[in-house]
């Protein structure tokens, strides 16, 4: 596996490749197998409400249902996450770790190095596409009827990974002009969301030209799962061409720029005079961020947290804006659809607050928990990368450093809950929407304990386990927790299993009000995890990375 950059990169990608591939396989197999005529017919009634989500086509068939529900917007967004991260760190990650210079000290040219790494990403995405196709074919085999053959399923998978590859290449290109992989990944993620919005907005405005600016539009011009859909292979070629253009730009810039520097600002960094350099000390003296570990953590997480909070605001505002217009219709559909009523068995839709609870608070806790996870994982990665060695050489106790980092993470999570509450409250005032303030407050602030448990879990594991293990364990727990809660209406789980899910324990405060038992219980668990973190961190070695 270490014979070439290609094989080494493939080895690096093996875990995400298999995790995403088999995850997609299982998901698609399960969802397609469940796309029975009853489910498809029931879903038809929701299409009018969800028309902003995608462009419905052949909705009375399982292929149309699966394409609309999962392949138009949801999976293109989800599957693009990993290629964006991989593209952003493709060469910038090596530069940040300091390994790029060693690689370039070999006889490999920069162009070849970059292309081999991209080839590895392409192979990984192709494997994911094949596994996706296997899942789809398996699902249709279980469903019966022989709707989709392997070639069609594979084409759908290839179309999906082509879009993901495009975003990966955008991230790669942006990583040439930013100085860090996080910035490149952040900007590309922002572009992804923007393109999705452009696609949605363009369709809502009756085919406005703005959708032509979105690669998601060109992706959706091909729907290989649907036999009668007028596919446009040129659209796929256009996406491929754009991806190759980004790749070409990346190769051009990477071959010419300084290693470790941005392609556009390297000279500015070099040109600081001695006086300017010393003035930077005076500026740093005045900076609040350098005062404590907690403040430094808050400022370091500032921009990424800002975008997260903005995303939460946008998410809440969008649904609040839609709620008055769709509430009665949704309620009617739910009442008339046994399948949907069963699915939403514990979340009524008969009031605006209830519908907001059903829609917003089905996803907002997950968003806040993922935010908590991303924040907390920096503790684990900083420990693994030895970024805290100098901090631990100062007279700050380990416990204090941990507590300040935990506190900074908890504060941002608290801000997320406040922002959720404020957005919904102010939004309701602006559009004269009658909502129950008490329940809204309960639903917003009940998101705090699950997020604190997530942070506590990461901190408790981080002292003993490597970053990859912590990421794997906590992510698996969160995904299983969410799945368990989502499937609760359809599958009966033992009581002890449901009580392990933080999303189940979060409950439905949007219409049931605050569940103090669960709130305090989860807060207690979070505190217990923090205490475990503190106790075990007293005794662990601070390892070198």
């Amino acid at each position: 596996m270490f014979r070439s950059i290609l094989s080494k990169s493939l080895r690096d990608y093996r875990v995400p490749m298999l995790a995403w591939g088999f995850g997609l396989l299982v998901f698609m197999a399960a969802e397609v197998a469940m796309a029975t005529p009853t489910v498809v017919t029931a879903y038809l009634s929701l299409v009018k409400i969800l028309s902003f989500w995608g462009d419905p086509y052949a909705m009375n068939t399982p292929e149309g249902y699966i394409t609309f529900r999962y392949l138009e917007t949801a999976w293109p967004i989800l599957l693009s996450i990993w290629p964006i991260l991989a593209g952003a760190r493709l060469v910038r990650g090596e530069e940040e770790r300091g390994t790029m210079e060693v690689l370039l000290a070999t006889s490999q040219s920069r162009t070849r190095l970059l292309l081999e790494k991209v080839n590895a990403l392409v192979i990984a995405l192709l494997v994911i596409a094949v596994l996706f196709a296997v899942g789809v074919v398996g699902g249709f085999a279980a469903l019966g009827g022989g709707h989709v053959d392997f070639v069609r399923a594979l084409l759908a998978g290839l179309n999906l990974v082509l879009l993901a590859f495009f975003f990966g290449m955008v991230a790669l290109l942006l990583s040439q002009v930013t100085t860090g992989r996080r910035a490149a990944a952040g900007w590309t993620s922002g572009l992804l969301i923007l393109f999705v919005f452009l696609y949605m907005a363009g369709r809502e405005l009756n085919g406005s030209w703005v959708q032509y600016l979105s690669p998601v539009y060109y992706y959706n011009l091909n729907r290989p799962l649907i036999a009668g859909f007028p596919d446009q292979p040129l659209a796929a070629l256009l996406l491929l061409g754009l991806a190759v253009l980004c790749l070409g730009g990346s190769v051009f810039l990477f071959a010419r720029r300084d290693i470790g520097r941005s392609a556009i600002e390297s000279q500015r960094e070099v040109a600081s005079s001695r006086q300017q350099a010393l003035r930077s000390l005076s500026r740093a003296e005045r900076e609040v961020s350098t005062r404590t570990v907690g403040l430094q953590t808050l400022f370091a997480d500032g921009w990424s947290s800002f975008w997260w909070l903005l995303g939460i605001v946008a998410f809440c505002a969008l649904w609040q804006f839609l709620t008055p217009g769709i509430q009665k219709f949704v309620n009617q559909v739910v009442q008339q659809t046994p399948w949907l009523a069963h699915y939403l068995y514990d979340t009524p839709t008969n009031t605006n607050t209830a519908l907001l609870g059903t829609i917003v608070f089905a996803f907002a806790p997950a968003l806040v928990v993922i935010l908590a996870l991303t924040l907390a994982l920096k503790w684990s990665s900083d420990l693994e990368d030895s970024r805290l060695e100098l901090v631990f050489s100062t007279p700050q106790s380990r416990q204090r450093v941990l507590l300040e980092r935990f506190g900074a993470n908890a504060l941002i999570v608290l801000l997320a809950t406040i922002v959720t509450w404020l957005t919904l409250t102010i939004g309701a005032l602006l559009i004269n929407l009658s909502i129950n303030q008490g329940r809204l407050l309960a639903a917003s602030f009940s998101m705090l304990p699950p997020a604190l448990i997530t942070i506590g879990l990461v901190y408790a594991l981080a002292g003993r386990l490597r970053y990859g293990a912590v990421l794997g364990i906590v992510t698996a727990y969160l995904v299983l927790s969410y799945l368990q809660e989502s499937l609760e209406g359809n599958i009966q789980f033992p009581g002890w299993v449901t009580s392990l899910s933080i999303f189940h324990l979060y409950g439905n405060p949007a219409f049931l009000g605050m569940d103090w038992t669960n709130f305090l219980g989860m807060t207690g668990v979070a505190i217990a995890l923090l205490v475990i973190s503190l106790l075990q961190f007293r005794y662990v070695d601070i390892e070198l990375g």
Partner: protein
Amino acid sequence: MPAIIQTHQLTKSYGKSRGILEVTFDIQEGEVFGFLGPNGAGKTTTMRTLMGLLRTNSGSATIGGLDCWTQSTEVKKLVGYLPGEFTFDPGLRGAQIIEYLGHLRGGVDQAYVRSLVKRLGLDPSKRFRAYSHGNKQKLGLVQAFMHKPRLLILDEPTSGLDPLNQQEFYKMVAEVRAEGRTIFLSSHILPEVEQTCDRVAVIREGRLVTIDQVSALKTIRQRDIEIAFADPASVDWFKQAAGVTRVAQGADEHILQLVVQGDLAQIIQIASQHGATNIATREPSLEEVFLRFYEPQQQSAALAG
């Protein structure tokens, strides 16, 4: 002079791989103490144990009478530390890192920070990711010296520094010594050790091999002797002789090569008994003395045997 660092039977193991084993030494207040050893010998492990970053399996270590593990926060008030390798948030500027660590330590004189930055020619306006290895090392030195600590623990402090900055560093060491403060540094550069250190310890494969004044190590009379015999010679003749640390076959079967410490009387007597035709002696350089300490034990044993 009181000991500022005391270790007793300090042991740290990493499972099957070696750490340090029963390391015992004292460092007196006001001295500059050098720590030498090949890569992986245990220098960094010893220093990180003193900083409370690693927990020992057994033994004890104190700094200023304070336990390095249980009272590590108090210990760090006395210490300035430069790790062998360090990294930081790549987006922070040098000035921000200095200021941040200054706040965490407390008691930092900004004028002194500026003087250190000027002396070492560090550009604090750059981001950490933009620093070369040498500039990172300068940043590390600034943060270690900036609060004028009672004790400086420096892991290979001149690594990556250019000769001018190395000279500046030696001046800084001399100033610290003149102020009665203590330095514990590891190094691979023997002239540096000769120039800066009062005493030196050599660690090999996790164990302390020797600890002495640098001047004493210089005067060790470890001589290389080559003896030629009329007939084929055996290494067994000299194995038990007093002062022989190594004996090996020479260029042919008539020649033996010995390393001898101390008096040569017994060597001359044995050589005479076996019909020696020529004896040549040579005194090794200080560098060779250290290289012998650096050699793996198995190799030393093989040479001796």
